[in-house]
């Protein structure tokens, strides 16, 4: 069977905050990934899409549907995803 990359692809909008929002220059970014992709895959996709985020990348936190998500968490198309540096409220 031949692969059908267009059916396997996933576009995930990612909300950005604080320093990563400034580095990217946008409030959100759409990352191109594949069905079954994990947060770790999004982290790589972010570095590829915006190389300037590489210095921050190891520190960046990811949230899926308003909860913190580890690199192994699988993303679905309906998920609400955000990426941001360590928090400093209070």
């Amino acid at each position, binding site marked *: 069977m031949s692969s059908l990359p267009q059916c396997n692809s996933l576009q995930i909008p990612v909300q950005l905050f604080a320093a990563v929002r400034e580095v990217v220059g946008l409030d959100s970014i759409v990352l191109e990934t594949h069905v079954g992709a994990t947060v770790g895959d999004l982290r790589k996709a972010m570095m590829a899409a915006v190389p300037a985020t590489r210095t921050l990348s190891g520190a960046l936190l990811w949230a899926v549907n308003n909860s913190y998500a580890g690199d192994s968490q699988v993303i679905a198309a309906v998920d609400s995803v955000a990426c*941001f540096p360590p928090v400093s409220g209070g």
Partner: protein
Amino acid sequence: MIELTDQTIDFHALTESVCDHAAGAVVLFLGTVREFTHGVQTSWLEYQAYPEMARASMAELESEVRQKFVVTNVAISHRFGSLKLGDVSVAIAVSAPHRSQAFDAGRWLIDTLKERVPIWKKEHFADGREEWQHPGVQPTPIEKGNGA
């Protein structure tokens, strides 16, 4: 009670909202904008929030503090936007039958809020520099990206 607001926090109303005949103690904590940090003068602060997750996260704190401590009422308000010196950035009010639980719960709430709730502070220093505060991340000069 959970609140995320760009207006001045009414910490008087917040305190009164937790008072209760079942409580013998109330602890209010206020975070306020300090002028000097390690000798560097702050001019003003900017707080940015991820609103949906910040509200959900503060609501989790409220339910978790009720499991960990014997408290009567809890109220948390965090401000975002531009804050000047002396402004209140966060207010946490807790009432409890006994004071030790009110103190412990109040302290746990502010400590945990600062670790978890997705809100960020940007320092605008008196010398004109500005810097996002990201614990554990070395501040680096921000190069504006190419916007993907």
